[in-house]
């Protein structure tokens, strides 16, 4: 087992070290470009290891007992490398490794002429290893190592083109300004935005981890007595702890109000957007929430503290989902549109997982299979977007039927992915979305119809902007001339990616295991079919009318002015505080190093003045002194 784990986590890292060193020592060494293949080979080995864990570790079912493997770390404190292989982690691991490998292959062509291949591959592979560590670890401190690795890799890759010299890598309309705020972002700035936002979530999360440790004596998610914990710390304690922990998840998964970093994260290479900022890394937040819920099993004991948290997560998820969908609907940048849609999907994953408090494990399974479906579909769309940006040299949605004719595979992939992801019957996401309708509907007694209404609304807008993406890039967009050259590896990669959607569809339809039989049941309900038809209608409408120019659209495209929170309110507040501290420093400096020495100087000069040897002065001083004494005595 230890060999498999070593390959799983270390192969990606070690295989990328040669290229990192080669490019670190020498700028753009041509001979070292071939080392990219070694990095991808490392990803491949990792994929094999994850497949082994999927296939050879016994039965794969939601009810199977998790298998754990422990390596000693700090046994005295009961903190060890504990890896867990259960339904969630085994599938998620393969998903991560497979998508990473496919995008790695795509990257071989996409990044061929890049000026920073060492950096790129090192962080790309570091990301893969960190993500796998996050996925498979049961110990929260170990998980947090992976978690920080994700944040770091994300920062490194967002700011990959650190020179800020290519407007093709910017986000926003260059030169556009609203009030005092520049509405465009450079890669180096976007990197800083990402890591600072994530940090705001990570530190409360880290506190929660430390508190779990002190309170329960263990850090293994599957071993903590979550029910007993509520008895120990009370309702308020649980709300504080789980909310603090979830802050990290919300920040990483770009939920409100932390979402804006994800939009500007699109300054990174498209491969990075596809892998990190859509398919896997941002999904880590939702994934950890699923894993936590899987072992908390809140549906079994209905703790009050947990109820508050799950309501919070449910509505935060739904609000973020709607916000993301609306922003995507107003957005005209290829990648930013997809980023906003990713945020929307992540919100749906959070929301459906949160329903588990009322509906049981099925809520988590719905969220999880939506994650899987979304990962393949969104990665396909991102990879197509990258190919389009390469061919058209434009990051905004442009292109008409000529593009579709020249890039047939890209067109087919986009059609397949958008149709599959929208939830149009009977394609892939329809079955999961039906499950989602079902779990939201089940909340009717506790929370009314609001969750279901929000879900349906989001689904319709979602399907609309997916159709808009298709239409504006391949059918009704501005005419552009393109002369495709090469692109074979890229095409292979996204073709494989969207074919996975059909594989998933086959599984959904043919399997009779949990949760698929629930999906079937929900999918054949008239209400689900009705929602499916609404979604289809929105899709068709947007296909014909992809763009409606209006003030509302502009407001949505400006992300409802949320950047003001990041770049103006918080930034100015910090600026004022640090200016104050600067004044404080100057004051202390002046007092200690100027004023006090000066006082000594004055005193010394005064004393020296007196010691002049002039008898006249001495007499004057003596007289003055006597005079003062007399005055004081008189006053007395």
């Amino acid at each position, binding site marked *: 087992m230890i060999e498999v784990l070593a390959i799983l986590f270390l192969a990606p890292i070690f295989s990328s070290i040669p290229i990192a060193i080669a490019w*670190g*020592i020498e*700028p753009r060494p041509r001979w070292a470009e071939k080392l990219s293949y070694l990095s991808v080979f490392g990803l491949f080995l990792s994929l094999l290891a994850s497949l082994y864990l999927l296939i050879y570790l016994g039965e794969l079912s939601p009810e199977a007992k998790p298998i754990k493997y422990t*390596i*000693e*770390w*700090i*046994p*005295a*404190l*009961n903190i060890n490398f504990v890896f867990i292989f259960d339904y969630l982690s085994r599938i998620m691991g393969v998903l991560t490794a497979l998508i990473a490998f496919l995008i790695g292959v795509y990257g071989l062509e996409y990044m061929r002429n890049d000026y920073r291949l060492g950096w790129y591959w090192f962080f790309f592979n570091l990301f893969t290893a960190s993500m796998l560590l996050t996925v498979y670890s049961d110990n929260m401190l170990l998980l*947090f*190592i992976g978690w*920080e*690795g994700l*944040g*770091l890799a994300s*920062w490194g890759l967002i*700011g990959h083109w*650190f*020179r*800020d*010299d290519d407007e093709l890598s910017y986000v926003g309309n260059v030169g556009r300004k609203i009030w005092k705020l520049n509405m465009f972002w*450079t*890669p*180096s*700035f976007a*990197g*800083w935005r990402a*890591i*600072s936002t994530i*940090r*705001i979530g990570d*530190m409360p999360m*880290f*506190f929660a*981890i*430390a*508190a779990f*440790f*002190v*309170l*329960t*004596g*263990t850090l293994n998610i599957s071993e903590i007595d979550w029910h007993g914990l509520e008895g120990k710390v009370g309702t*308020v304690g649980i709300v*504080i702890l789980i909310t603090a922990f979830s802050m990290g998840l919300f920040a990483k998964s770009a939920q409100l109000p932390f979402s804006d970093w994800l939009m500007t994260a699109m300054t990174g290479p498209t491969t990075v957007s596809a892998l990190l900022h859509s398919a896997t890394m941002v999904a880590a937040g939702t994934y950890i929430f699923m894993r936590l819920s899987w072992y908390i099993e809140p549906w079994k004991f209905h703790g009050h503290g947990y109820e508050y948290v799950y309501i919070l997560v449910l509505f935060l998820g739904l609000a973020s989902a709607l916000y993301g969908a609306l922003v995507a609907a107003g957005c005209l940048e290829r990648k930013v549109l997809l980023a906003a849609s990713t945020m929307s999907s992540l919100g749906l994953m959070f929301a459906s997982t949160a329903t588990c408090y009322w509906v049981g494990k099925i809520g988590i399974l719905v969220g999880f299979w939506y994650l899987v479906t979304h990962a393949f579909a969104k990665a396909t769309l991102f990879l197509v977007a990258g190919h389009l940006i390469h061919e058209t040299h434009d990051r905004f949605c442009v292109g008409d039927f000529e593009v579709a004719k020249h890039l047939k595979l890209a067109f087919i992939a986009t059609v397949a992915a958008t149709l599959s992801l929208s939830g149009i019957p009977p394609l892939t996401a329809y079955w999961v979305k039906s499950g989602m309708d079902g779990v939201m509907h089940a909340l009717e007694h506790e929370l009314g119809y609001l969750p279901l209404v929000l879900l349906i609304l989001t689904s319709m807008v979602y399907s609309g902007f997916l159709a808009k993406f298709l239409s504006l890039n391949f059918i009704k967009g501005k005419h552009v001339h393109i002369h495709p050259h090469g692109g074979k590896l890229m095409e292979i990669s996204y073709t494989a990616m969207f074919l996975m959607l059909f594989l998933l569809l086959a599984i959904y339809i043919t399997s009779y295991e949990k949760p698929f039989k629930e999906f079937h049941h929900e999918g054949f309900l008239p209400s689900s079919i009705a929602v499916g038809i609404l979604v289809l209608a929105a899709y068709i409408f947007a296909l014909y009318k992809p763009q409606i120019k209006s003030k509302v659209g502009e407001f949505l495209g400006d992300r409802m002015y949320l950047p003001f929170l990041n770049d103006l309110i918080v930034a100015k507040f*910090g*600026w004022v*505080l*640090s200016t*104050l*501290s*600067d004044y*404080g*420093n100057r004051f*202390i*400096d002046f007092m*200690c*190093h100027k004023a006090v020495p000066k006082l000594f100087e004055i005193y010394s000069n005064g004393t020296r003045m007196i010691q002049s040897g002039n008898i006249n002065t001495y007499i004057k001083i003596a007289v003055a002194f006597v005079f003062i004494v007399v005055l004081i005595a008189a006053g007395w």
Partner: protein
Amino acid sequence: MNVLIELAIFIPLIVTFLLPALREKAATALSTTSFLIPMVLSLYSLLKLQSYNVSLFDFGPPIGEFYILVDPVSNAFGFTICLVSAMVAAYSLPYMRHRFVEMLHHKEIENSEKEFKKYWFLYNFYAVSMLLLVYSGNFLLLYIFLEISLLTSFLLIYLYGYGNRQWVGILYFVWTHIAGVLALLGFLILAFESQTLAIKDLRAVSFVAWLLIFLGMIVKLPGLGAHMWLPWAHAEAPTPVSALLSPIMVGLAGYILFRVYMIDSSFVLDFKNLILAYGIATSIYAGLSVLKQTDYKRLLAYSTVSQMGYMLIALCLGAAGLAGLIVQYMSHAFGKSILFMTAGAIIATFNLRDIKKMGGMHEHIPTIANAALIGFMTLSGILTIGMFGEFLILAGVAKVYGFDLSVVLAVVVVFIISGFYSFYTMKVIYYGRPAKYEKPKFSRLLDAPLYVIAFFSVIFIFPPLATALINGLDFALGGELVKIIKEVLGGVRP
């Protein structure tokens, strides 16, 4: 195998007196080696959980026994000091060459060979005095080494510093001696009360003695209000000296507080809330100040003040906090020494300190930029030993203050700010549109030593080093660390 760490720590001391006789390259090699030997041995001793005393001589009351104190805490500090000193020694060669050329040019010195001899003597004496300090088993002995380190570092600043170096040197001298004298007074009171200053024989520390030592250490650490000497001294010192001053020396105040705490914790326990609030205020205030700096070295100096606030915070947080204090010392030492050396590398290659004139420096000096990244990762506790420091401090908060939201939020804000200024600085200096400079050629000694420290910073989160370090700290704390989880697990060992 009995490790002779108690002998090895005297190797650099002997070497100190040989160095002036050697040429600069030989001196560099010898100085580096002289610290590498005790480094390896202290690490081995740490791994083996060794703990013993070696008596030197007994003065009788009121001074008591002078002895060498070997325990996991001394070894953790000793290892850190040796590692950083060895790497900075190697780094000194190209840097001081540059500095002496500059000083020759300004006619501030006459002969760089002669200056090198002086430099090596002072440098080694300075570094070894700090090493011996952490192995001193008697507060008087400890004070003597403290005094040596102050004098030598003062001379280094006074002779080879930048800017208004004489003024800065005297400023440094006065402030550190305020700290030193306060501590000495505390030690003297302690001596007359207990009739000994041997750490193993001391049982209680009276309020006045504690207060004086604490105030002295507040100036040395430094805490908010008494901190203004530090940005001056650390920014204007020659960079190799800054790379010892900031990472190693100020944190020794934390070491002294730790030792006194282990004898008698009453003072800290009585004023827990006050000290914690002061530590938090120091850290947040200095962290915010970092963002306003335009001089790279001054920026790093403010970050040191902020990190020293962690130490005060950790001091109030029980066993987990104390372990956090030591890990924090190590992580800050690793991170900050790397960062000061990156600042120095930019000075040595571009003669540049003003951040406003930097930007996109990764383009010109990628190896330095990547080292700086690891340095800042260490400060903000990402994938490095700093992560353990943060974890232990947060565990201490949860243990001692529970869900007291004001404390939790304040400590969380402290950590957030560290991350903020770290990556903000990275962006401002190393990324963005590259400033127009020629890509320089520079000595490997300006970047390779940084990666050695970075290597240790990363591997300290994995076994066997992490295991040994935490076990050692638990051992030094008398099993208090493990007790935290024993309590909740009902005495059943996992």
